């Protein structure tokens, strides 16, 4: 396979088959099958050291897999060195050549493939990333955001079949990061190239990608559309790593109906059976999960106003913090059995002045919003407290 640009713009499918990487006794990536559909914006999400960057580098050819194969559009490229693969990378901290100016950085790939007249292409590309006036500057004279755009331009000008992005926005401040997220998404939609994006920022992954693979300890924990991952996490790691989840250990009282009946402390809770990732057993245990923003808070004095059919749990507000769009509460409740308090995010529409620390409250939610997980897992996986375990 040669490094010429593909003429079609539908994007190339990337297929990893039983790919793995070990360094001595340490296994960075466990044998993994992964198919990235052509033209998709695909995110590999995980904490540092989870194997996401190693996976990306194996696709680029910068790391030789210990086993398995890499296929681009059906062709096996496992044995090809990086310079013969029709993929390009936007590196972490950009790796712009400090001895070349912006123009030559962007032209680098074209020149290596023996293309003589690069002027028009480079000019167009610099205009696309709005850096036309900076062609003769050196990389170190540019701001972080500008360098990032050069890195993208330098990769995209080659019309790669797949663009790999290794934490491309990690070095930018929050505001610029938001802006570049949208910018990258726009470029991807425009050029239709398959993007594979490695990040540890779950918000970034969800904003940009159509498909997110959550990696942990060298394995893919779950893969799917951002909304599916968020609404129906399949493991405690995913539940905690993607946003915040309240996980409550509960006994299964009745697993026969379409709604499971669970008990945590003295509260009876309902959970639709199809929102449960394990086959529940009467008498067994489950983790019931609920996102903080799906819980409503009602002061204990008004407990009677809570509609029927909602799961309800009692508690006492431990802390509250006002953050503008919402107020975030931590609520101590008997159902947590001494574990972390329950988090509740209330939108600031009508604030109940009685909801202050110390207040007795009822927490209630639509059972269809909760999800059930295998109780054999660590409840803290994927949280800050669970890190390093």
């Amino acid at each position: 396979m040669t490094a010429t640009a593909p003429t079609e713009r539908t994007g190339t499918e990337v297929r990893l088959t039983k790919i793995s990487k070990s360094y001595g006794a340490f296994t960075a990536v466990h044998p993994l099958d992964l198919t990235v559909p052509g033209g998709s914006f695909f995110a590999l999400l995980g904490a540092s050291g989870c194997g996401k960057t190693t996976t990306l580098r194996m696709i680029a050819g910068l790391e030789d897999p210990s086993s398995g194969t890499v296929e681009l559009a059906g062709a096996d490229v496992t044995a090809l060195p990086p310079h013969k693969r029709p993929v390009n990378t936007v590196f972490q901290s950009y790796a712009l050549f400090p001895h070349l100016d912006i123009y030559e950085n962007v032209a680098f790939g074209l020149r290596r493939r023996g293309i003589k007249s690069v002027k028009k292409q480079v000019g167009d590309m610099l205009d696309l990333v709005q850096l036309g006036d900076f062609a003769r500057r050196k990389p170190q004279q540019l701001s972080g955001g500008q360098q990032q755009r050069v890195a993208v331009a330098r990769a995209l000008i080659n019309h790669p079949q797949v663009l790999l992005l290794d934490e491309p926005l990690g070095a930018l401040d929050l505001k610029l990061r938001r802006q570049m997220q949208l910018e990258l998404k726009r470029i991807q939609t425009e050029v239709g190239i398959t993007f594979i994006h490695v990040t540890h920022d779950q918000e970034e992954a969800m904003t940009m990608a159509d498909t997110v693979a959550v990696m942990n300890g060298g394995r893919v924990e779950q893969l799917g559309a951002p909304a599916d991952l968020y609404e129906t996490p399949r493991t405690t790691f995913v539940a905690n790593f993607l946003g915040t989840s309240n996980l409550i250990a509960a006994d299964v009282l009745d697993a026969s109906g379409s709604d499971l009946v669970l008990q945590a402390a003295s509260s009876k809770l309902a959970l639709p059976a199809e929102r449960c990732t394990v086959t529940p057993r009467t008498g067994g245990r489950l983790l019931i999960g609920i996102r903080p923003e799906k819980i409503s808070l009602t002061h204990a004095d008004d407990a009677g106003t809570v509609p029927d059919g909602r799961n309800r749990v009692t508690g006492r507000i431990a802390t509250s913090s006002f953050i503008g769009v919402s107020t975030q509460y931590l609520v101590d409740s008997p159902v947590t059995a001494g574990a972390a308090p329950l988090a509740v995010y209330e939108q600031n529409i009508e604030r109940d002045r009685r909801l202050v620390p110390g207040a007795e409250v009822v927490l209630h939610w639509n059972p269809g919003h909760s999800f059930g997980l295998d109780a054999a897992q660590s409840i803290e996986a994927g949280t800050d407290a669970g890190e390093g375990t």
Partner: protein
Amino acid sequence: MTAPSGLSRVTRWLRRNLVVIAGLTTLGYLMLPNVIVTVFSFNKPNGRFNYEWQRFSTDAWTDPCGVADLCGSLSLSLQIAVWATLGSTVLGTMIAFALARYRFRARSSVSTLLFLPMAMPEVVMAASLATLFLNMGVTFGFWTILIAHIMFCLSFVVTAVKARVMSMDPRLEQAAQDLYATPLQTFLRVTLPIAAPGIAAGALLSFALSFDDFIITNFNAGSTVTFPMFVWGSAQRGTPVQINVIGTAMFVIAVLCVLVGQLAGGRRKRS
């Protein structure tokens, strides 16, 4: 509070500028011999030694090669320095890359072997190498000097280049490969240009060390006379003014080169 007296004001000023005064004094100490060398290049000494000021003359400047063997030894020193620089830079750069970029066995032994020549008095190395040459029956001369110079310059080149390569982001080379550069192109277009300042520093250091070396050359030159050996000999036989002329000229040329380089660098940065 009362106004400080004159004396205390002086001591306060002295205390505040102590570092500046001490630093500039040291600089004076460093520069003084060069000033003397330059001044005495315009001397017209009585007798063979140029140690006492007699009267102003430009004789030596108009006839710098007027002393037998002086310019011959100078040209020999320059030749040796060029070849020693070339040899030690190539060999040293290769070692530096191996150390900075690869893991291999015997790494610590290699580091020790590189460190020892820098941690050993020159006279020990000089005598040892001369012993080897004597035992092998090698004729002393140009080649033995060159071999010796490459040997002791090598470690300095490795140190200079290694520091530069270590501080270089390995992702730059990966980026080049990712952008279709073959391993050779990656080396020529990315690695080499970025490592160039380190290599240049190593080469410059080699040149200076080789050109100015006396002790090792003294043991391994046989009857061949390099410029430092000429100066050494003249300290016994009589010091011609031309030595000062050449010393001054080298100083001026070097400083001019550095200044031009600085100006060019500064202009490039500004534009």
